[in-house]
Structures are given as structure tokens and as C-alpha cells.
């Protein structure tokens, strides 16, 4: 599997993504600087976490309008898999690859903790290695993770199997206390209609080795390698 990671001024989890992808695939992903207008030919594009442009104005807004994102969109249209993590989720959502918007956390505070999630759909290369309904633990670390869309869209996303992950409480139940940011319907991550694009707030790339105390994120990268090699 060949992967590219798009780096914006202010990205800060690109190294984490490099490590996770390299461990899973055995090849170093390309780092693509935001001012490049050309993307190498790859099977997967990752938009990593961080604070692109300082998260000023709205998280992800400025990066979403940079030239490289036009190229990312074009590739996504051709079916290239795109994974937006945290700030990357905000960026691809602002760029229109996914519906809805990411707002300030309901508690108005940045939240960093290990979070329980339920895998809602396994019919994608991102989630194929999980079982439907499986509870996994990924860290979250964000201030603007409050996913919002209108009730009708939530229903549609659910109906089309496009909710990838939901926040749950530590005892695996749906519980407002399990939701770190007050996102609508406890949504933590969603797919596009073809399930070739995934955006999620939690960080699977920070749960892939013993040092992290948790390897629940590893199946996502293993699944991608298996599907895209």
C-alpha cells in the first residue's frame, strides 16, 4: 500500500501517522507539503491531526481551501481512500468531502483522554478488521470535535451505514458522559456515501503499539494495508 500524508502549516500528528502506517505497511508514506499541487500516485491519503493555521477562524477552514485539497478531492472522487483524523476530519469536512460541521466542544474545553468507541459499520477497508459493535479504545485530543448536522442527515447517515464510530461510556453503554464533546447522536466518525472516505475525531494512530498501552487502533491500519495492497 502506498500512502501520502498531507502536511499543513500547524499539522502536528503527521509523525504519529507516519509511524502507524510504516509499522503496518513496511513502507514509509510520502509527506506532501500543502503548497505542492501534485500528489504522488497513492492508494491512501491521510490528512493528519494538529492545528492547521492555528485553528484560527474555524478549525480546518483555511487548510480546506488550500490548493492541495483540490487535488485531494479529485483523488477522492476517483475512489482513492482518504482518512481524515481529528484536524484532518475538520479539514475534509470543511472541504465538503463529508457532511456536517465540527464545532467547539460542548464543554468548551480541550479534552485529552482515552475514549471508548463502538464500531458501527465494518463494511469499509478502514473498519473491516473490527467486528460490528466491537468496543475499542482510541485516545481523543481535541477542542473542536463536536460534530453537528441536522436530524434528517443523522438519520440518513445511520440508514446508509455511514456512521463509523460512536462514543460510548467506559462500560460500553451509550451515555452522555461517554461523549467527550456533545457531538450529535454521539457520532465520533463518519464515512462518505461510498465509504471510501473516513473522518473521525479520535486517534487510532496513537493506539498501535505496546508503548501506547493499547493497540486497538492497529486493525484500522492493518485493514487498509490488506485491502489496498
Amino acid at each position, binding site marked *: 500500500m502506498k500512502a501520502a500524508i498531507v502536511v499543513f502549516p500547524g499539522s*502536528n500528528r503527521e509523525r*504519529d501517522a507516519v509511524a502507524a502506517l510504516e509499522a503496518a505497511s513496511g513502507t514509509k508514506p510520502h509527506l506532501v507539503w500543502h503548497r505542492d499541487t501534485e500528489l504522488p500516485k497513492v492508494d491512501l491519503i491521510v490528512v493528519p491531526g494538529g492545528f492547521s493555521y492555528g485553528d484560527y477562524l474555524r478549525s480546518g477552514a483555511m487548510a480546506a481551501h488550500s490548493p492541495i485539497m483540490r487535488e485531494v478531492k479529485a483523488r477522492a472522487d476517483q475512489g482513492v481512500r482518504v482518512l481524515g483524523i481529528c484536524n484532518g476530519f475538520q479539514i475534509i469536512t470543511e472541504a465538503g468531502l463529508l457532511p456536517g460541521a465540527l464545532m467547539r466542544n460542548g464543554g468548551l474545553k*480541550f479534552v*485529552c483522554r482515552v475514549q471508548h468507541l463502538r464500531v458501527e459499520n465494518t463494511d469499509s477497508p478502514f473498519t473491516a478488521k473490527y467486528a460490528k459493535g466491537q468496543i475499542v479504545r482510541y485516545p481523543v*485530543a481535541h477542542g473542536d470535535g463536536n460534530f453537528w448536522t441536522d436530524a434528517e442527515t443523522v438519520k440518513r447517515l445511520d440508514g446508509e451505514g455511514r456512521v463509523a464510530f460512536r462514543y460510548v461510556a467506559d462500560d460500553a453503554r451509550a451515555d452522555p458522559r461517554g461523549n467527550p464533546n456533545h457531538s450529535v447522536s454521539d457520532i465520533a466518525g463518519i464515512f462518505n456515501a461510498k465509504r471510501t472516505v473516513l473522518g473521525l475525531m479520535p486517534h487510532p494512530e496513537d493506539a498501535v503499539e505496546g*508503548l*501506547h498501552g493499547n493497540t486497538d487502533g492497529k486493525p484500522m491500519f492493518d485493514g487498509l494495508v490488506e485491502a489496498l495492497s
Partner: protein
Amino acid sequence: MSAEATRAQERPVTLELAREFGLSEAEYKNALDIMGRLPTFTEMGIISVMWSEHCSYKSSKLWLKTLPTTGPQVICGPGENAGVVDIGDGDTVIFKMESHNHPSYIEPYQGAATGVGGILRDVFTMGARPIANLNALRFGSPDHPKTRHLVSGVVSGIGGYGNCVGVPTVGGETNFHAAYNGNILVNAMTVGVAKADKIFYSAAAGIGNPVVYVGSKTGRDGIHGATMASAEFTEDSEEKRPTVQVGDPFTEKLLIEACLELMETDAIVAIQDMGAAGLTSSSVEMAGKGGLGIELTLDTLPMREEAMTPYEIMLSESQERMLIILKPGREEVAKAIFDKWELDFAVIGHLTDTGNLVIKMYGETWCDMPIAPVSNAAPEYDRPWEPTPAAAPVPDSVFDGYSASLGDTLTKLFACPDLASKRWIWEQYDSLVGGDTRFMSGQADAAVVRVPGQTKAVAITTDCTPRYCLADPVQGGRQAVAEAWRNLSAVGALPLAITDNMNFGNPEKPRIMGQFVGAVQGIADACKALDFPVVSGNVSLYNETNGEAILPTPAIGGVGTLPDAMIAVDIAFKAEGDVILGIGD
């Protein structure tokens, strides 16, 4: 702006002006003697900043010299931007702790945020990639009307800055005590790693070499901030507000990446961040350490505001700026890197053999001052001090009314703000970015962070128990160092060295000076006994409001190393039936 307009804004140089700038009459006379003439307005401003407590350490220097600062592991001790310690295989760990107490009291979010920014620059300026931040915080009583606002602002400011630059905040400590009601303490620590053969120092070299300014533009931020940090608070010091700066962590992140990229080339002779007293202290220190002169022409310096005077530019404390001496002919290489990261870059001068600081602007010379004599003449005081009298034994009656029930006592202890969980603080800090965090806040006695790309790790802790230091500064100083040592050992690390942040009241009071002297002595004792040298540090004095001093608070930041991050041990009991051992006296 013109030379005339600048002159129109200047005030005559008199003893009265010098006093306003924070100098004493003796210091003013000394300045006249050294210059051999009446200093210009710009020169007076520069001298007053160089001789401020904050920059000159005039009250503390004598005592700091008594701390042990060497050892086989020490590559660079105090005197540079941060301390450098060997961790084997050609790797080093570079770290320092610094206070941002006064600004954080005035504007908690920005004060704390810029504190984090400043300490990060101290560390990456030496060539290190920052891998961890910690913070040692002291607030007033929880029921004081200001405390809630201060805590919430400081914590979100530390998070706001650290999270954005992508350096994990992995630990710290937080105490509450009424003695900090009017003077909170915000001490921030950064730890970075660098290759031993890729460390950058601040001493300028090479007559004629270009002096380069990079980073954010200069505004009128914090002019005379360094002297504010050296003055005692009164009720009306909130009037001094505009001296607070706003931090831009996004620019700092770009600055880190750009500087580290430039450091990969061989273009740099010397580099230093513009911290307190900005361009003044960076240019004077760099030239001074190299025994050279420096000539700056400020017209091309990137400015954010219009009509700035040389005085304002030299004293501005705008954040996220660095000063670099380049090898001749490397300007283009360097400029290309800063262009890539979209940061300002300007050649603003060159090194000379005169030994003088020369400042030109608008076609005129505003400062022509001999650096060494002014630096060397920075006052150094042997302030009178009184040893702290032995504390009276605690009478048994103190325990009257305490329940004998262990359960009740435990509940009481859990509820005490100093012992209560600090989760609500550290959940606001990104402790995981980088993917190298083994233990963060709450998991173990010290934080453990793997050296990027390697198996080995560093362990880091901050410690101090101010009430011990109040009762007995010597024992309190020893205890803080010993606790740092124990916390590092407890995770399985070999303790290497410490940084300290000495927070005290007004040193002109013999009682307070005695606390300082005692704490230094205690730290020195413990460091010697444990082979645990001090490699960097910071002093914050005059933490008093209306004559009420804080508790003596010598915060200790300890660093150790482990050959493998995975051998580190946390505090969680692992399995039923495991044996519990208690060791020690």
C-alpha cells in the same frame, strides 16, 4: 517616522527617568561613569533592562554560584538558554524551567500561554526538538474570589499553547494556599532532545558575519516587561496591563520547524531567542559572550506597528522571534527556509570588532554603548539575610477534634485541594501527541517519554512542597530535590540532573533573602549528595502584594533516563495476590 519625530518622543535622561526605569541612584551614577557622558534615552532604556533583577540576577547570582553544576553527564550547565545532559549514544536531553508569574496574574490565559512559548524557545534554540512540557502551578486559596478565574485561564492558556505547537504536556504539580492569593506561580518546563554534535550556542563569532532576525513582526508589546517582572505588586499594578503579550502558538510551531530545518544545514554560527527584554538581551548576550561588537540597523526590521522608535524596538517583548548569526554568504539558504515556513526574515546588522552595541535607524545612531563594561557592571548584591528561625514544634492540640477513624481521615485528605485529583487539569492538555508518551500525568510518579525513533526514554518530574520550605528552607530545598530523585527512581529511571525555578518574595527583606539562601543551600546539599547537578534554572523574586510574600517555592524539575521505555513502572497495582512491600525509613 523620522529622526526628528523619534527625538520628539524621547524624554530627557535624568535621575528621575532612571528611577522610573527601575534603577537606583547608585546604578544611575554608575551608568554615567561607564558611558563617560550622559546616556541617550535609548541607551538608558537598554541599561536599565540589562541591570534589572530579571536579566542580571543581581540579588541571586552570588548564591546561585554555590550550586553544583558539573558532572560527567553534564554537557552544558547554567549560562546558556538551557542545560544539556548526555543520555548516551550521542544523544542529549536539553531542558529548563521558567516562570511567568506576574503576566499570568494580570492576564492568566495569555500570561501562561506566552510562558510556555518562551520556555519552548529556550530549548529549541539550542537545537533540540521539544518532546515534553510540564508545569508547576501555585494558586491562592480555592475560595478566594479570583482563584477560579486564574486557574481556569492559566490551565487553558498552557493547553492552548502547548496543544497547538504539538508538544505533549505530560506532568506537573498544582498547589493551593492563601499566600498565593495575590501572586500566583506559573512555572513551565520544556524538555527536548538533540544529537550531541548538533547543539547550538549563543556566543557570536566572526567579525562581519550577518545578524538575522526571524519569526513574528515586532510590535510595542511588553515594553519594560522585564522590569515589571522584577517589581513588587501593588493594588494599582493592574494599570500596567498593556505590557501583557498575546501569544501565537501557530507561528511558534512554524518557528520550531523552520529553525530545526535551518539547523540541519551548517549555516548557523549562533542563535538565541528574543525572550525578556527582546532584542536588547539577545544582541547584548550574543555579542558579549563572543567578546565582539554588534551593529544593528533597525529600518528593515519587520515591524507590526507604525512609527516605532529604536527604544521601543530594542525593548519590545513581542513573542515568537529569534536572532541568528549566520556564516557569511548563507543568507539565501536561510531565507529560503523561512520563506517556506512563511515567517519574516531580515538581515538587520553584522558583528564588529569594536565591542560596542551600535543601533542605527532613520539615518542616525541612537546607541553606541560598550557591551562588556555595562554587562560586567551589572550590579551584584550581597543582600543582608537572616537565617529562618527553627519552627516551633507543632503542639498536640493541633490534632484536637480530628477523628481517629481512618476512613474519615482519608475522606478529608482526598477532599483537600492539594491532594484531590488533578484530572480536570491534565485532561485539557494533549499529553499524547508525538506518539512517544509512555506515562503522562496521573499514571506514574514521573512522566516517561520515549526519545523519538529510539527505544530509550526520559523520565521527568516537577516537585516542591512550599510549606516545608516555609518551616525550614534548608530542609525544604533538600526535600524538593530528594523527592524529584525518588520520583525518577520510582519509574525505573536513572536520575541525571535538575533545573530549578526559585520563586520568592522581596529579596530586600532579610527574612525573605534568608529563605532564598536557605533553599539554595538545601538544594546544593541534596544535589551534591545525590550527584544530581543543576544544569539550568530561573529566579523569580518580588512575588509580593502589599507586603505579603508567597511561600518560599523553589520548584525542582528533575530529569532521568531509561534504556528502554518499556521497562518503566507505573503506580497501578497489577494483580490480586501480589506482594506489597514498603521500603525506606
